[in-house]
């Protein structure tokens, strides 16, 4: 939208010129004619001084991936591809990942470039593609104004914060006879044949070592050092409470990121599920970057979690962990009890990370849901429930 329109100042100055002209003809003072001609000459010059903002080529250099709230360096380059000098311009970058940038760009002769690097903060989690850069110029006197909006592509994914967890109660498989839950899984991934052990319910049939079984008389299975690691599935759902970036859903997203990365670090394969307006989004066996990118695009959607849980259990099977991250209100919360029972029935471990919605209410008197019973329902069985509240340290809440 390139427009070349006169500003209010142009009209005022033209008006002054006309008034000078009238004064001149009244007083028959020749100098006033000269003044009137000069003033009107200024306006005429501005009309002739067209800007060629279209010759500006703009590039934006922003990191591909950054964390919400982190300061990053964002660079802007303007390159004059035309044959005429680009005038003094106001450059506004409306790239949604960061707060709008407003800078001025000095005159650029043909072929010249100017660059600037600003430190900006990514304030919103999300996946951002292109953003518009708005150029405004009014040179030389500000009588005429022209604008041009240039769409500058650029992908930036602002990933959520995550905390380094010291521990999280993920279910570990055990190669020791005692069924002790370790806090840290062994990181060994060797292929070393560890030997045989007695059969435990849930071991795959193909792992049975028939020869030894024949010898011993009881089922014996072969065990490899790198057994199927216990899979962790994270389910993220529910409505948002509060204003992002300080809201319940954001906190749950960060929690999901923290848990997912912790799971990867401790050698567990991870799955992630969340509801979409139409359907379900699923991420299987990601690396940490994939997790963060996937979570960056997450939107709060309040829907029952049981369908997601059943999908999760298909992957996790027995002896896995399903972490359900929901707020304490809404459909997701109401469904939590059923979801937990479902998980436990399948033999997996259920962990609920609940965002205490009441902590985002300014006035708890306006609570229209029963938080206490909600939390109680979630902790049915021996479900581990981690409650996160507004303003609390995530690592402390989860670990």
């Amino acid at each position, binding site marked *: 939208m390139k427009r070349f329109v006169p500003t209010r100042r142009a009209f005022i100055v033209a008006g002054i010129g006309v008034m*000078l*002209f009238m*004064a001149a003809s*009244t*007083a*028959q*003072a*020749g*100098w006033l*004619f*000269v*003044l009137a*001609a*000069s*003033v*009107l*000459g*200024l306006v005429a*010059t501005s009309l*002739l*001084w*067209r800007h*060629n903002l*279209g*010759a500006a080529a703009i590039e934006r*250099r922003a*990191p*591909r*991936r*950054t*964390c919400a709230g982190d*300061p990053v360096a964002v*660079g802007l380059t303007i390159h004059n*591809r*035309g*044959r*005429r*000098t680009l005038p*003094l311009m*106001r450059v506004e970058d409306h790239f949604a990942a960061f707060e709008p940038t*407003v*800078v*001025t760009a*000095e*005159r650029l*002769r043909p072929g*010249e470039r*100017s660059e*600037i690097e600003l430190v900006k903060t990514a304030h919103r989690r999300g996946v951002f593609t292109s953003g518009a850069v708005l150029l*405004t*110029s*009014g*040179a*030389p*006197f*500000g009588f005429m104004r022209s604008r041009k909006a240039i769409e500058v592509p*650029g*992908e930036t994914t602002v990933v959520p914060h*995550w905390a380094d967890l010291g521990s999280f109660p993920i279910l570990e498989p055990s190669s020791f006879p005692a069924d002790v839950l370790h806090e840290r899984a062994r990181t060994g991934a060797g292929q070393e044949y560890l030997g045989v052990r007695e059969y435990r319910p849930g071991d795959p049939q193909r792992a049975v070592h028939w020869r030894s079984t024949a010898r011993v008389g009881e089922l014996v299975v072969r065990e490899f050092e790198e057994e199927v690691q216990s899979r962790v599935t994270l389910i993220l759902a529910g409505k948002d409470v509060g204003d992002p970036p300080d809201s319940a859903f954001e906190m749950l997203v960060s929690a999901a990121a923290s848990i997912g990365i912790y799971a990867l670090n401790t050698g567990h394969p991870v799955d992630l599920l969340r509801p979409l307006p139409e359907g379900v989004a699923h991420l299987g066996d990601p690396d940490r970057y994939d997790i*963060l990118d996937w979570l960056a695009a997450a939107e709060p959607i309040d829907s029952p979690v049981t369908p997601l849980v059943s999908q999760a259990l298909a992957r996790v099977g027995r002896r896995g962990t399903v972490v359900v991250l929901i707020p304490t209100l809404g459909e997701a919360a109401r469904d939590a009890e059923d979801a937990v029972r479902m998980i436990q029935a399948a033999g997996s471990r259920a962990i609920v990370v609940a965002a205490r919605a009441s902590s985002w209410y300014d006035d708890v008197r306006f609570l229209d849901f029963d938080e206490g019973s909600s939390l109680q329902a979630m902790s049915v069985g021996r479900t581990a429930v981690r409650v996160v509240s507004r303003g609390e340290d995530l690592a402390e809440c989860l670990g």
Partner: protein
Amino acid sequence: MPGVMQSVRDANRTRQPEDSVALRAVVLATVVMGALALAVVQAIAITSFVTVVVMLCVAYYVSYKRRRDDNWVIKIGLTVFALLAMLNFLRQLSNVATLDEVRFPLADLFLWVQVIHGFDLPARKDLNFSLGSSLTLMAAAGSISQDLWYGGVLLIYFALAIVALALLHRSEISEGATASMTPQSNRGRADAKRALNRDFLKVVGVTTAAAVVLFLVIPQPHAVRTFALPFSFGGGGIGGSGAVTNPGFASGTSPSTRASDAAYYGFNNRMDLSVRGELSDEVVMRVRASAPAFYRGIIFDNYDGRAWYAPDEEPVPLGESDPPYGYPLEHRSLGPRSIVTQTFYVEREQPNVVFSGGQPDSVWIDGTLSVDENGGLRTGGTLSPESVYSVVSSRGAATPDQLRSLPEEEAPPKFDKYLQIPDSVPPRVHDLAERLTRDAPTRYDKIKAIEEWLADNFRYNTDSPVPPVGRDAVDYFLFDSEVGFCEQFAAATAIMLRSLGIPTRVITGYTPGTRNPFTGYYEIKNSDAHAWVEAWFPRYGWYEFDPTFAVPPAETELAETVPLARAIEFLSDKISVAIPGLSPETIRYVLYFAIVAVVVAGIWLGRRRRTPRLAPVPVAAPVGRGGGPVTRAFRRFEQTLAGYGRGRSPNETAAELLRRATFRSPRKDFSKALSAFEKERYGLEEPTQEEVRAAIAELERLMDDAAGAPRVTSSRGT
């Protein structure tokens, strides 16, 4: 109470103070220029000017330093001073006698308001206002200015105003900006400065050109209505006798030359037709008039064969003691009249005659006024330089058709003196007149016939032969010499018309002079002194005719008002003098055509260059040469990455580089590029055309991706 104080303070604090020192300095300079202009046109005294400038500097400094504070104390002080300035102005007003002189105290007041206002200029809009009011100061000075010195100040002011506007715009567009992008050029700062100066000069040049074009083209119409009389008082006036006192020619003596020290001999009781001499080009008067007119001075009624005489009797003082003096009714003409107001600024001493364009109605002059029998106005004494007086007069506005339609009537008896013909005039003069006007139906036509005949058949020369003693001057002129100058033409016309029974009188005075398009004043030179006739029409009275130049003065209506037309006519006159073959009209048409052609050509050329062609993107020459196409493409890829600070380190292989470069990008496939490059670089065989193309395409995609990859990694270790 503290709450109220706080809210007062907050209300007074500026939201966005203007920080630019350069802007303030330039605006200060424009206001100083405005004050300087006023000083140059002598509207304020030098001491006043110096005080104002010093105080302005102090004021601007204070308002800069205190721009972030709520200056409510200062504002109260300023209000007090403003009131004082107003009171001073009112006091000055009481000393002023005429409306025109109000300009000076008004300019003074406005200047002091500027100084007071200068203490409180925190934000940009205040500086905007200051710039606008500096323009008003310039306008005020411009309306007073009589000479061209003002032009110099105006030029400087113009340049400063352009800079101020540019800086104001810069401040406006930088509102809220956090940083400034300067171009990276290895051409150096000196070069950039030169470019900036060039641009500034370009702007100034274009604006000046636009202003000049507009000035030339915009017509400067005469004042349709006079809102205020452009007059003021000056000195002058010595009591003296009623006879015409001419500073260059003592009364009663015979002049030896027509002009003496910028005085015209024709402004006297007696005008001798035998006197010869050149008139000088000295400016004797400046006139600010609402319309140009022939300024009537002396009215001659009696001819004795050699000279014309004005009434000798003591003029009758006009009744009033204070200006304005009204013109006696008995001398007024009737019928359609057009009003002309004029103010005369005397430069060289003038005779004690009140010049007026046409017939005066009211005169504003400091001194006594008397009127002679013919209706000519006399002052008490000669008018010294710097005298100023104003006249509202009227001229006959009847169209020729209206004049023609007038019925023939006998002139009243008191006009018999205007029919007087001495015996020295032979009858053949009357016969000539009869013959010339045989076919003219009306009085008006008769006058025109004689005018034209004289113009066609007689030559103008100031050095015409002097009529020998004993010969009638008019007769000698008409039949013998056939060459003369304005006095001869006027005298001959008057006599011939009188012989036809038309009351006619000879007038000496000044032609309108040349209008200075800048100051607006008509400048009257000594050589503008002229003689013409007035003929009497029934009912409408006296109408002037100039037989010396039968065609109206060379200036057309257009040239009077449009400076460009005036310039063209001036040029065409000069050229036609240089090249005798061409007439001024032809040259004028040629010049107009040339201007139109230039304008059309300019528009056409400008239209062609309107669409800026994009310069081709220069391809960076790769450093290092040689190798096959894939190697060259890879080199470019390396350089692209290097441009983003992620170039290949010397110990990195191609595969490692590609892996690193594609780590964060969505497209991770670089196999085609890598395999083709390795083949070409390390292998025995060349890669195929297909492979080369695919590799280069892939490298280019990777280069695009590289542009978006991070330069600075975030601190959370992603």
